[in-house]
């Protein structure tokens, strides 16, 4: 076997091995998307009921709460960025990071100081590499987030917003995550979580023309709101974590699918080249034999004379 042909054969072998790996990763990601979607669906009843309850307190009483009152001049804001722990997901992480950077730039243009809170090793690595300050970071659960994880993330954020701005608290909380629109579409979006505008929440709760009854609050509207709002924030963060996980798996699936397709193309091209090389080798051998034979024939013909 010629040197050229051997090189092609070796490359085909290695690309085939890579293709097998990416194919397996594609299938794993596909099954995880379904699982993640199911988790999103399972968390929906809690989220809807909670939204309903928040709307009920918000519209049924004139309670003021630090989590709902807008600071007159907001000077500090927190941005929570949700990324994944692992890459190999196409532009998933860079899109989320880009969205967070745009949001940060916008907030800074408005004269606000921005604290960055980051979930996921990818985002943390990105910020560390650029030596930007991270207020707090979490990682290790982005593939399959549990409610407890959302609680650990929400805790310091709620604490920060309840603190006075002068003491290092924040006035606003924004969240940047990747919304799972469909298997094919995931978009990085940012939304303001706090202060909560109750009107917006009311608009979000599905049945618009439904008139909420006058609730009897137990023990009091303030206490209910006190307990309700942190839970609401937690549940929103939980939902964002779940959507981000589902999006990550969908992005991985897509990236691995194109990697598999590319590997297939590469194998086809390489086999063609290998065939051509083999053919060239054979042609060369034939011409060598023919040339040799005719030279021999010429030589013997000459000696006969």
């Amino acid at each position, binding site marked *: 076997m010629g040197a050229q042909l051997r090189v092609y054969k070796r490359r085909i072998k290695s690309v085939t091995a890579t293709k097998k790996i990416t194919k397996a990763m594609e299938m794993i990601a596909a099954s995880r998307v379904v699982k993640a979607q199911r988790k999103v669906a399972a*968390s929906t009843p*809690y989220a809807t*009921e909670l939204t309903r309850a928040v709307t009920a307190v918000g519209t049924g009483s004139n309670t003021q709460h630090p989590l709902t009152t807008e600071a007159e001049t907001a000077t500090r804001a927190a941005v929570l960025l949700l990324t994944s722990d692992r890459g190999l997901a196409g532009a998933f992480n860079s899109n989320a990071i880009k969205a967070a950077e745009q949001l940060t730039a916008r907030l800074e243009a408005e004269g606000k100081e921005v604290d960055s809170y980051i979930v996921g090793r990818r985002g943390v690595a990105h910020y560390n590499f650029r030596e930007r300050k991270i207020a707090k970071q979490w990682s290790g659960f982005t593939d399959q987030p549990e409610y407890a994880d959302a609680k650990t993330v929400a805790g310091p954020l709620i604490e920060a917003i309840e603190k006075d701005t002068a003491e290092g608290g924040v006035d606003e909380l924004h969240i940047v995550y990747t919304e799972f629109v469909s298997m094919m579409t995931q978009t990085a979006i940012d939304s303001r979580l706090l202060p909560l505008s109750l009107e917006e929440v009311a608009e979000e709760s599905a049945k618009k023309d439904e008139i909420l009854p*006058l*609730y009897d609050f137990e023990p009091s509207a303030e*206490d*209910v709101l006190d*307990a309700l709002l942190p839970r609401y924030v937690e549940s929103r963060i*939980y939902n964002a974590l779940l959507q981000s996980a589902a999006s990550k798996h969908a992005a991985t699936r897509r990236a691995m699918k194109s990697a598999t397709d590319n590997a297939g193309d590469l194998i086809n091209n390489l086999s063609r080249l290998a065939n051509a090389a083999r053919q060239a080798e054979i042609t060369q051998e034939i011409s060598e034999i023919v040339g040799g034979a005719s030279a021999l024939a010429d030589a013997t013909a000459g000696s006969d004379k």
Partner: protein
Amino acid sequence: MAAELHVELVAADRSVWSGEATLVVARTTSGDIGVMPGHQPLLGVLESGPVTIRTSDGGTVVAAVHGGFISFADNKLSLLAEIAELSDEIDVQRAERALERAKSEADASAERRADVRLRAVAAR
């Protein structure tokens, strides 16, 4: 047929139980509260504790609920909890072990959680 109310018991990550009931007893921060059909609209904060649901076919469902809310309107009752377990889902031995461990480590919240689980099983 006796009047009924529709109950939804949902935890943060799943729907635990839903069905028709005639009476629901839960523990709010200001004391135990019993809700029967036709109760006035109510929104309360729940303590950790067992929730007893008397179903319309005469059975009883007990669940251990750790923190959450109770809301009632239009004969629909929602129990929202971060963690909720039906009494028949609770592993008694595990809860007992957890209780002992919590006692030895003086972890008050873990002790209360385990205690609530055991009480929910006992009330079954």
